[in-house]
């Protein structure tokens, strides 16, 4: 076999010029991705034979699909448009929905280009909102000076009558515009998006793109370490700040190449005798950190990819994934105190803030279990606590779209709901388990909130 | 020697535009229930359907109820459903029906039992409507049961089935209609028609495939006087097409009864002109008493006398 070369960076989709040793792979050719950050193995289809490419980082840079909004219109991005000598040119932006900001720029440039080439031609520019990025405010000034006719519209004021005729009706203006229409296309996710999501084990994103709406995934991070998302894999607004995002991403790649550390000191071992390859851990892992170990015929947790949320541990049906014992102990002085299971990314931080604001630890008179994510919470564990202790349990997770592990807060909710259902059916202890969500900034709320709960418990 | 299998068949073959109606048996064992209904339908319709545990609600069996009505002088169409009986039961029923002089049978797959009150019942569906038609065809034409055994005297049956011009997707359901005709279906009763445009299109397709000549098509008409009923049918009955203009028309009407009759008559007049439509099938849900009036106002009264077949 030829020397196994490892590339520093792989581009899935379009390639940008960089100083890294990089390789470009088309989304169609990609079949599978194994391994983790620093050591990915991309399996590609080379004339129906698998070819393995070793890379340290991956950028998924898929182009958008452009869907025309009007059949007979040319795309605003096209250089190949029709100009009929006798008729005016109509540029249509923001139809039927608001276009991405960068389209304002493309539209203005196109309008100016046409006016430059055909100075006597009437050029109409129909828009719902003009967004300014960089210097397209100057473009806009120039466009107005060149006597391009700008017509702002709300959707009710615009009707497409026939293929090349637009009826614009607003207050005292009633125009039937008949001419060559250049319309902003609707930007859609690339057609390989679903496939790529499966190959990389990425969760379904926002509006069918690959990136979830989550504060921990800005600007180009995917849930999977070492895999970055640009342009058509992220969403229509990703085009606007493409340059900045590219810079950020390449910077991350540099940092990665300098060295990546494991997220915590715990080893998560899969007992290959117990693992039944049900793929539950693989499917629930929000970070794509689990893959199959072909030699042992069991799953394995990849230490560098793992972000330590423990969802795999808490959901494995055969308890095959183990972690060291001392990891989830209850800390507290008094066994009668209520028990808090707190996420280190929200409640713990909020508590520290409260402490620095007020000079008092709001968690003082509670027994605590500190967890990296409330996805750690398990049914059996909660029932066991309810048996051994007499007080209530409060689980404090993160608010929507602010879970560091993307799905932990919702996963915990599913467990808690099932617990409550069962307790209700058996008519026992139904009010002893509580689940609330917090953001790390809710310090004052945390204090007040815990105080209220304590009062309620007394009764 | 009889030329025709049933009076209904004779009328259709002789080119009459037939009028069928429908009767639901009682949830009980009272034969007078049937006799009363037979009374006011007599003379106004050519043949009457008698449903078979429709929507999986337990009622007096179709054959028993049909016999009671037939004894009152009505031409009856029994229904056989795949949901409740296996191939043995169905063939047995067909033999019994023919022996009792009941000659017209509608072969249906059957509504799922979840629509009735016995959701926990085991369903059968040993035969679907296509298999049932095929089995009946062989019984009638070749004198042979499904298992190949010869019968001493084969049954005499005129075979029909249901079709829904409004079910989507079009191609899928058209495939089923074709199969039923190939299997031996001789007449069709359609789902209730309100959307005339869509019905026209369906008939066009039926004609294009030559199916209107292989099978007598009867247009389903559901006279109603209730806006609520129309709305319910639009919303809840899968495969029913009730256009908004129909609901609006009934809503605006002052005399709902009159409007209901008029609407039914209008639809009848329209379908009568369509090439390939050979009759109507009246299904006045919860308004059976209006049948005579509708028949009269549609200009379809009196009905032709049928002597012996």
């Amino acid at each position, binding site marked *: 076999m030829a020397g196994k070369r490892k590339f520093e960076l792989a581009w899935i989709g379009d390639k940008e010029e960089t100083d890294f040793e990089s390789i470009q792979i088309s989304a169609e050719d990609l079949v599978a991705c194994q391994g983790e950050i620093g050591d990915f193995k991309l399996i590609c289809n080379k004339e129906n034979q698998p070819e393995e490419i070793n890379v340290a980082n991956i950028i998924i840079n898929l182009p958008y699909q452009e869907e025309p909004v009007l059949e007979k219109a040319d795309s605003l991005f096209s250089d190949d448009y029709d100009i009929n000598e006798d008729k005016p040119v109509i540029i249509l932006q923001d139809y039927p929905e608001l276009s991405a900001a960068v389209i304002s720029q493309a539209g203005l440039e196109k309008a100016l280009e046409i006016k430059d080439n055909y100075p006597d031609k009437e050029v109409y520019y129909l828009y719902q909102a003009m967004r300014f990025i960089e210097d397209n405010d100057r473009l806009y000034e120039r466009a107005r000076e060149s006597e391009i006719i700008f017509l702002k519209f709300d959707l009710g004021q615009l009707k497409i009558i026939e293929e090349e005729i637009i009826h614009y009706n607003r207050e005292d203006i009633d125009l039937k515009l008949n001419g060559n229409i250049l319309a902003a296309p609707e930007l859609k996710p690339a057609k390989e998006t679903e496939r790529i999501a499966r190959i990389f084990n990425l969760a379904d994103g926002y509006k069918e793109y690959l990136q979830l709406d989550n504060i921990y995934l800005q600007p180009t991070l995917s849930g999977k370490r070492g895999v970055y998302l640009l342009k058509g894999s992220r969403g229509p607004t990703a085009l606007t700040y493409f340059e900045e995002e590219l810079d950020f991403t390449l910077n991350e790649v540099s940092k990665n190449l300098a060295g990546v550390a494991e997220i915590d000191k715990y080893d998560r071992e899969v007992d290959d005798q117990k693992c039944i390859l049900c793929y539950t851990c693989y*499917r629930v892992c929000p970070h794509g950190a689990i893959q199959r170990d072909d030699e042992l015929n069991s799953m394995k947790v990849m230490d560098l990819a793992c972000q330590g949320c423990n969802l795999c541990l808490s*959901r494995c049906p*055969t*308890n095959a994934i183990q972690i060291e014992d001392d990891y989830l102990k209850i800390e507290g002085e008094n066994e009668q105190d209520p028990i808090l299971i707190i996420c280190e990314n929200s409640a713990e931080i909020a508590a520290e803030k409260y402490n620095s604001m007020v000079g008092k630890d709001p968690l003082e008179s509670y027994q605590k279990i500190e967890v990296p994510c409330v996805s750690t919470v398990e049914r059996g564990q909660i*029932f066991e606590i309810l048996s051994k202790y007499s007080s209530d349990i409060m689980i404090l997770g993160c608010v929507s779209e602010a879970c560091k592990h993307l799905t932990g807060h919702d996963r915990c909710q599913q467990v808690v709901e099932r617990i409550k259902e069962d307790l209700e059916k*058996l008519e026992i202890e139904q009010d002893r388990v509580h689940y609330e969500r917090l953001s790390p900034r809710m310090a004052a709320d945390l204090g007040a909130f815990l105080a209220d709960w304590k009062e309620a418990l007394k009764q | 020697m009889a030329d025709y299998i049933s009076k209904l068949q004779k009328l259709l073959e002789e080119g009459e535009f037939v009028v069928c109606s429908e009767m639901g048996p009682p949830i009980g064992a009272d034969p007078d229930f049937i006799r009363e209904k037979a009374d006011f339908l007599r003379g106004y319709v050519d043949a009457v359907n008698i449903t078979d545990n429709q929507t999986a609600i337990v009622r007096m069996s179709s054959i028993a109820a049909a016999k009671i009505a037939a004894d009152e002088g009505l031409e009856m169409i029994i229904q056989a459903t795949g949901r409740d009986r296996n191939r043995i039961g169905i063939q047995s029923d067909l033999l019994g029906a023919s022996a009792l002089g009941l000659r017209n049978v509608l072969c249906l797959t059957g509504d799922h039992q979840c629509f009735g009150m016995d959701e926990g019942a085991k369903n059968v569906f040993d035969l679907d409507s296509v*298999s049932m038609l095929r089995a009946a065809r062989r019984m009638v034409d070749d004198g042979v049961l499904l298992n190949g055994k010869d019968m001493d005297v084969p049954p005499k049956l005129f075979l029909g089935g249901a079709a829904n011009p409004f*079910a989507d997707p079009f191609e899928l*359901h058209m495939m089923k209609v074709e199969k039923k005709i190939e*299997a031996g279906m001789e007449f069709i009763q359609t789902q209730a028609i309100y959307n005339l445009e869509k019905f026209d299109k369906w008939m066009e397709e039926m004609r294009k495939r030559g199916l209107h000549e292989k099978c007598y098509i009867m247009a389903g008409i559901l006279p109603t006087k209730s806006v609520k009923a129309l709305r319910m049918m639009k919303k809840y009955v899968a495969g029913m097409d009730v256009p908004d203009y129909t609901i609006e028309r009934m809503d605006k009407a002052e005399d709902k009864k009159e409007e209901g009759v008029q609407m039914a008559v209008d639809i009848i007049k329209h379908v009568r002109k369509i090439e390939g439509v050979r009759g109507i099938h009246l299904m006045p849900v919860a308004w059976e008493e209006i049948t005579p009036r509708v028949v009269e106002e549609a200009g379809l009264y009196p009905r032709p006398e049928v002597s012996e077949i």
Partner: protein
Amino acid sequence: MIVGKLKDIKEIKDSLPDDIDSLLIAGCGSCVSVSLAGGEREADSLKELLNLYYQSKGKSVSIETETIKRQCDDEFLDELELPVARNQVVLSIACGVGVQHLAINNPGKIILPGLDTTFYGRTSDIGKWEEMCHGCGKCILDQFAGVCPVARCSKSLLNGPCGGSQDGICEVDDSIDCGWQTIYDRAEELGQLENLLDFESPKDWSTYKDGGVRSHKNPEFFQE
């Protein structure tokens, strides 16, 4: 694989005898683990829940769990021999096969089911399974473009669809896809629509349980 779901906890609790003093919860590490219903995790959490219940009623019941690889084969049952012996009642959360196999191997012992076995299904998404096969004994998938009319049509029609199929949805429930729509679509893709126009004879149900409770022997292995 065989798919099942854990019984309603109230139903499980009610099925346990009033005078119970010891309980073994027997889990299974195969199909019901993969369908996230009856594996070691579920056995353990069931134990904790029942513990909590009995504790709240002031009853003293000792509960043990033991999960073996499969409950449908003799050799694995050895591991259960002692736990079964020392417990009054056994609650098995294996599929119906496992429960009965345990019962056959432990005459005189109360073996209760903790799982409702549902169907032979595929995993269509994490936490979601769909019925695919009925074990009819005579596979006809070649005739229906790879989609089984017996298992995926609510009426098992061989000449479908029925009149209740609307926009690809079954009349029984909105959540059920019309099996015949699926058959039609797939046949169209494969250019096999003509096959569907051919009349399909009624199924020979004698290879199904209708022909009698079934068993079979592989002559290459079975020795009288």
